[in-house]
């Protein structure tokens, strides 16, 4: 038993490829917990960052700087009465949130947090991610229809129309990135998520910079389409508050509503990780081929620890700045304690064995986190589109652009071959 557990640690494969059930299960649990924590953190960060963008303070009451607000929200949601409309279609109403959450979480079994840090490596990785995440449109349609109410139905119709149209532009951008894995390079192309990052490593370039500016345009198309795919601002028409109350989940409350919330945020993380894997070099650290050598390796591997120490420092700084009133004593002690925990995590991350293993996960998460910040930034910046404008952008701008990029990528990639043929003749 112990040998079975230990045998995986020496192998250089993902648990799925090694066929090790135990570690696959461990990875699934870790990813599930990590995602839930990330969603909770995103909840707090979004409210806080949006508030600061609008020169407000945001949540300040529950815990120091509102740090415990997500927990308070979660307790509120779980204790809330679970209401089902009398005319609703019971079974479908009950199934819809489960379906959405399943689709949003299943995707993560192929997300490569590192060369070995993925549940499994599928031959059809990208295809699997796109396919399963497109299933969440079904869940949204089910929710909207089952509520048997006007606002949810209109919200669901808008949402499914939007998702189906932007999926096509998204697919074009993804195909051009997948083509880059093989073009102008020996070996065959691949759809596997790990294979795509390894191709970027072998070609010594992130695909966003390859065939400049083709990679950049494809990335731009994906970056727009993924916001529309996840129904976020400025494409959040399905849940436009001013017109549709809350869109497809108007009739949902309590725990079921929080499932939709969880699914929305984990879908955001999922599409961001597709973008990171395809164009931004996945788990690779910055400049893996330019800044080589033991010194640079050491320098970049210190980053995770330094990040946590920085967060701990922020906590201590805020502790000093807390009001010196007896009423704030518990909050001050709690904040200092949080800082100590973060500092300890940072110190653990400096241990050599941990450092080596965690590095990939750190860089991947940081790239995804940048995308999550962008999501919040968009929401604070752009006004909402009108529905006809949304369709125009999807079908008349992004899709032709995507087709053009696809053809040009193929042409540029095959150019050496064409040249050679002409030369030989």
């Amino acid at each position, binding site marked *: 038993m112990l040998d079975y557990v230990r045998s995986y640690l020496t192998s250089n494969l993902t648990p799925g490829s090694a066929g090790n059930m135990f570690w696959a299960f461990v990875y699934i649990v870790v990813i599930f917990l990590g995602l839930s924590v990330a969603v909770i953190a995103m909840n707090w960060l979004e409210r806080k960052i949006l508030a600061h963008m609008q020169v407000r303070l945001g949540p300040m009451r529950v815990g120091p700087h509102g740090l415990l607000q997500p927990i308070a929200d979660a307790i509120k949601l779980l204790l809330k009465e679970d209401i089902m409309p009398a005319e609703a279609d019971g079974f479908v109403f009950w199934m819809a949130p489960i379906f959405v959450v399943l689709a949003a979480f299943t995707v993560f079994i192929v997300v490569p947090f590192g060369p070995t840090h993925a549940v499994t490596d599928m031959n*059809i990785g990208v*295809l*699997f991610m796109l396919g399963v995440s497109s299933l969440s449109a079904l869940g949204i349609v*089910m929710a*909207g229809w089952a509520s048997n109410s006007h606002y949810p139905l209109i919200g669901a119709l808008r949402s499914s129309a939007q998702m189906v149209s932007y999926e096509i532009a998204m697919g074009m951008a993804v195909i051009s990135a997948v083509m880059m894995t093989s073009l102008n390079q020996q070996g065959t192309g691949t759809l596997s998520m790990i294979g795509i990052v390894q191709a970027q490593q072998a070609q010594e370039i992130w695909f966003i910079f390859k065939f400049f500016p083709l990679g950049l345009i494809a990335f731009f198309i994906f970056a727009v389409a993924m916001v529309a795919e996840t129904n976020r601002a400025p494409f959040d028409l399905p849940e436009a508050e001013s017109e549709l109350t809350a869109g497809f989940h108007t009739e949902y409350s309590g725990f079921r509503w929080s499932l939709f919330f969880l699914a929305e945020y984990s879908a955001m993380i999922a599409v961001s990780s597709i973008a990171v894997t395809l164009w931004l070099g996945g788990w690779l650290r910055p400049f893996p081929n330019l800044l080589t050598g033991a010194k640079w390796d050491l320098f970049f591997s210190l980053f995770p620890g330094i990040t946590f120490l920085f967060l701990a420092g922020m906590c201590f700084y805020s502790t000093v700045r807390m009001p010196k009133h007896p009423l704030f004593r518990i909050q001050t002690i709690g904040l200092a304690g949080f800082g100590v925990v973060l500092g300890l995590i940072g110190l653990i991350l400096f241990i050599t064995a941990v450092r080596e293993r965690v590095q990939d996960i750190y860089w991947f998460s940081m790239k995804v986190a940048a995308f999550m910040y962008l999501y919040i930034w968009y929401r604070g910046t752009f006004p909402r589109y009108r529905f006809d404008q949304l369709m125009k952008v999807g079908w008349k701008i992004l899709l032709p652009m995507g087709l053009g990029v696809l053809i040009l990528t193929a042409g540029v990639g095959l150019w050496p071959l064409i040249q050679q043929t002409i030369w030989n003749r």
Partner: protein
Amino acid sequence: MEPVATPFFFYLLAGLMLIGGVLVITRRNPVHSALALIVTLLAQASIYLMLYAPFVAGVQIILYAGGIMVLFLFVIMLVSIERSQRERQFNKQWVVGMVAATALGGLFIAVYTKGRGIFPEHALPAVEAQNTQNVGTLLYGQYMFAFEIASLLLLVAIIGAVVMAKKRI
């Protein structure tokens, strides 16, 4: 690595498909039928995955479950369900249906019993790692003509739909 293609999974998925298929034709509510059809299609995708054809499985999920069924539901949801449920279903062709089903079942049984020679003795060696590449090479190499004909057919269908939907072109 242990193969996943165990009989247990086959019977589980095949059972799911059968139950889904029966529900599709027995539910009176068209939305429930569509949802049962989705279950059937997903189980079918899993069977493809079990047969070491991951690419076909992925395409099945994207196209059928993710694309076509969303459009199906889209249309069905716009129909007034109450009215369609009250109305008498006028399709009384169950005799023809039974005959067709019996004929198809008989064909399957005949193939299974008589057709031993058609099928290979053993399962083909699993080429999961190269599945997508192989499908691509075949489609754009050996079966190029058929592939292009199929795409032409789809183009004709699209043009036809636009012509029918648009009043003025």
